[in-house]
């Protein structure tokens, strides 16, 4: 009996928009039931997102457990990656990821900052809009398309540069240059990553620079500062934390960037022995070997690398959000 009343109440509340209307307006009970069902559905959907996020951790851990129990934490410091002998160590990929990401950041940050300052401070209005749109377009081009451009344009170009360096007396003898000039390798990956992360640094930098209060600039101008002095002494220090957040956000992008890097880095599973040497990153080794991985241990090792990448990206993103949030509560990133 009770149950029937219950269903009834629910039915009135959720009732078809046409038929149930007068009833609902009068009955406070049906009113609340409709709201509860609606909220209930939303909460279930929200909870599903939490489940998905949890599933990332659980699945990666479960599938990577075999490698973790076999190699322990030594997995992270061993540079021995040999699927045939069943030896797996992720050090070359950690190093490869670190070198490509940091290299790309060093090249990208000054350029991204320049473009952010250009659109916020220097460019006339009619130019600022299109330029910032074009910079954003850099982020819209898919990774795999950058990779293809890399293979057919950038790799031959880097090969020429490398050859020229190798034949230059005084430079060609340097150990970190002396690798076979294939064009595929660390340096090419750094170049392509640079292009890909610039829009992320630039858009955050642009947003936080726009948020610097006008009084800040006006005070500096009133003291007779030139435009550059205003930027250097009043604007950039104010925006520093936010820009740093953008830089770290870009670092997160660079760490996980897969296709373009996989296509130009040369995919060698050894530690890189030079600036132009072929190597691999965590993301590229997964992309390159997972589909053809033989044996549970190989699959599990790649999953474990995925887990490391997952945790790393979370830490970095939370750090970036915290930094950006300090300057600009909501609105950015």
């Amino acid at each position, binding site marked *: 009996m009770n149950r029937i009343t219950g269903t009834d109440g629910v039915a009135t*509340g959720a009732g078809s928009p046409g038929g149930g209307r007068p009833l609902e307006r009068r009955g406070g009970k049906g*009113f609340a039931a409709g*709201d509860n069902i609606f909220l209930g*559905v*939303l*909460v279930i959907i*929200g*909870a*599903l*997102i*939490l489940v*998905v996020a949890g*599933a*990332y951790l659980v*699945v*990666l851990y*479960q*599938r990577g457990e075999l490698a973790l129990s076999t190699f322990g934490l030594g997995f992270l410091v061993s540079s021995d990656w040999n699927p045939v002998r069943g030896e797996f160590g992720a050090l070359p990929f950690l190093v490869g990821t670190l070198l490509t990401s940091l290299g790309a950041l060093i090249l990208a940050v000054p*350029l*991204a900052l*320049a*473009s952010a*300052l*250009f659109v916020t401070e*220097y460019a006339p209005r009619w130019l600022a809009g299109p330029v910032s749109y*074009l*910079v954003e*377009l*850099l982020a819209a*081009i*898919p990774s*795999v*398309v950058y*990779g*293809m*451009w890399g*293979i*057919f*344009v950038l790799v031959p170009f880097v090969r020429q540069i490398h050859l020229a360096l190798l034949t230059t007396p005084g430079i060609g003898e340097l150990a970190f240059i002396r690798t076979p000039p294939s064009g595929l390798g660390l340096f090419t990956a750094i170049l392509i990553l640079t292009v890909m992360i*610039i829009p992320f640094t630039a858009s955050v930098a642009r947003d936080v620079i726009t948020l610097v209060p006008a009084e800040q600039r006006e005070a500096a101008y009133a003291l007779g500062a*030139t*435009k*550059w002095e205003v*930027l250097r002494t009043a604007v950039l220090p104010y925006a520093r934390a936010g820009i740093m957040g953008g830089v770290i956000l870009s670092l997160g992008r660079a*760490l*996980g960037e*897969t*296709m373009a890097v996989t*296509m130009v880095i040369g995919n060698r599973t050894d530690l890189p022995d030079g600036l132009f040497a072929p190597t691999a990153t965590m993301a590229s080794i*997964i*992309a390159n070997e*997972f589909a053809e991985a033989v044996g549970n241990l190989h699959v599990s090792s790649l*999953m474990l690398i*995925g887990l490391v*990448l*997952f945790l790393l*990206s*979370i830490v970095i*993103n939370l750090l970036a*959000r915290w930094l950006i949030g300090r300057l600009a509560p909501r609105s950015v990133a």
Partner: protein
Amino acid sequence: MTGVSARNRGRRRVADAAVALLIALGTLVVLVPLFLVLWYLISSGISSIDWAFFTQLPAPVGREGGGVAHAIVGSLQLVGIASVIGIILGVGSGILVAEYPRNPIVAPVRLMSDVLVGVPAIVTGLVVYGAVVVAMGRFSALAGGIALGLIMIPYVVRATDEVLQLVPQSVREAGLALGLARWRVTLFIVLPAAVNGIATGVLLAVARVAGEAAPLLFTAFGNQFWSRGIDQPTAALPLVIYSYSIAPYPEWHRLASASSLVLVALILVTTLLTRLVFRKR
């Protein structure tokens, strides 16, 4: 005294001009790769775009001609599956986050969807492989669509949340004052007011995942022929671009550059259009 300060002022002016020049040059350097990539795509891809490109399967190795119809259909299928997941979970959570900010589940949902934005796409591929592909026992369009859908969710949540925040509070109050239930106010008054903005967000998210290859490598896997169903491996444009451009056949390179051109054109047109439409409102 005056001489020194005049020289000093001169130096400061020069520094100022030098920095301005450097900044302009830096911006130029940022934009050059964009034009190089676009120029490369147009010059190498446009000659291969013909009727066959959109309607035929790739010709066997060694033969000329053919197209990537299977990958175009595959991509549409994958994006379709992804959109269902992305819209239901993304818009639903977005409504929750924006309209019920005091619900205890909102803070974790917001945090998790922000965290998921930063997770590399290849990791999503691994997770979907571990959960869906292993369970089904084979690569499939469904798994690929799920992977893309998971990537879409956080973008849709954020877009929905932001657009709903823009709907004036007075609109909600007006609805409630008429004696409407809160769910009706949300569904039939607030959502319609925000639907264009939400659609924009969904389209941008679609444009973003349509170009993803990494999460498809071991979920949708790719296919040289027509996919025989949602539970079978399927081709997709990004996968074709990847596997054809690393292959040694010039004929495949041709198809890869044409596919890149089509993909980038679709993505740029979508982003440009949604931006223009959104600007006008």
